[in-house]
């Protein structure tokens, strides 16, 4: 059998093993990994990780939560909540950042907080991410290039009227109405992010 020193691992990390059931109130200032069951109430100032074998039936209040197992109860996070592809959750989420990936199952409400004070911080990273994805997209899908099109969409029409320009103009992209294209692209962007 390993000694307690070997078992404890890095300081400030708590693990609830798969055969352990904790019933009651759990509070702490360190990361918590749940592979077993926790029922009652759970309050941490750091990150809760519910692994695929983990079951949490509790009202949870943490900084970050990553759910790959089962959570029944409400989660209030000061920073983020992420449901991974193995995560299953029933309950309400209150957090400025909520990430639900493909494959996760969730029933409940999501509250990302007030628009005014909550937005400025989360928006900046998104604003940086979106243009990057947009820039990458046209390369993958040449037809959908509407950021430039205002200028270019006029070109093909020129091209069709003036044969001399045909050489310059690429095979005329389907003239998609810019508004529709922008909408479609936003959807694509959202999927790419996940």
């Amino acid at each position: 059998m390993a000694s307690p020193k070997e078992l404890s691992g890095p300081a400030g990390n708590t693990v609830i093993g798969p055969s352990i059931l904790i019933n009651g109130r759990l509070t702490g200032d360190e990361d918590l990994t749940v592979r077993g069951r926790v029922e009652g109430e759970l309050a941490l100032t750091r990150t809760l990780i519910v692994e695929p074998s983990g079951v949490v039936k509790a009202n949870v209040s943490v900084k970050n939560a990553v759910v790959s197992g089962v959570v029944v109860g409400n989660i209030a996070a000061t920073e983020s909540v992420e449901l991974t592809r193995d995560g299953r959750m029933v309950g309400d989420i209150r957090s400025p950042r909520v990430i639900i990936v493909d494959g996760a199952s969730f029933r409940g409400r999501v509250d990302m907080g007030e628009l005014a004070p909550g937005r400025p911080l989360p928006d900046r990273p998104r604003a940086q991410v979106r243009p990057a994805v947009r820039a990458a997209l046209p390369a993958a899908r040449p037809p959908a290039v509407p950021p430039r099109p205002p200028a270019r969409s006029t070109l093909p029409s020129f091209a069709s009227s003036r044969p001399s320009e045909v050489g310059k103009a690429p095979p005329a992209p389907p003239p998609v109405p810019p508004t529709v294209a922008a909408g479609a692209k936003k959807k694509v962007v959202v999927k790419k992010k996940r």
Partner: protein
Amino acid sequence: MANTVIGSSLIIDGEISGDEDLVIQGTVKGKISLKESLFVESSGVVEADIETQNVEIAGRVTGNIAATDKVELKSDCRVVGDIKAPRILIADGASFKGNVDMDVKG
């Protein structure tokens, strides 16, 4: 065997049960029942009744301890409560107050 560690900043108020080893560096109040070993490290504080197979205590325990195999009180521990187990070891330097019962269980 998977292991469970209750870290030093963690406080659990309630009941812990399970079939695996448990290491306590934090605080547990309530009740602990395990089928394996319990380690209360020097930073650990337990105010609970304990039922396990083995217990090793280097921290503080207040409560009654019933072990099916062995209870070991290490040199820096402080234990208040009754201990019932077939084998009980108390190291030099340990402080303990309570009853000891070594009746062998059937």
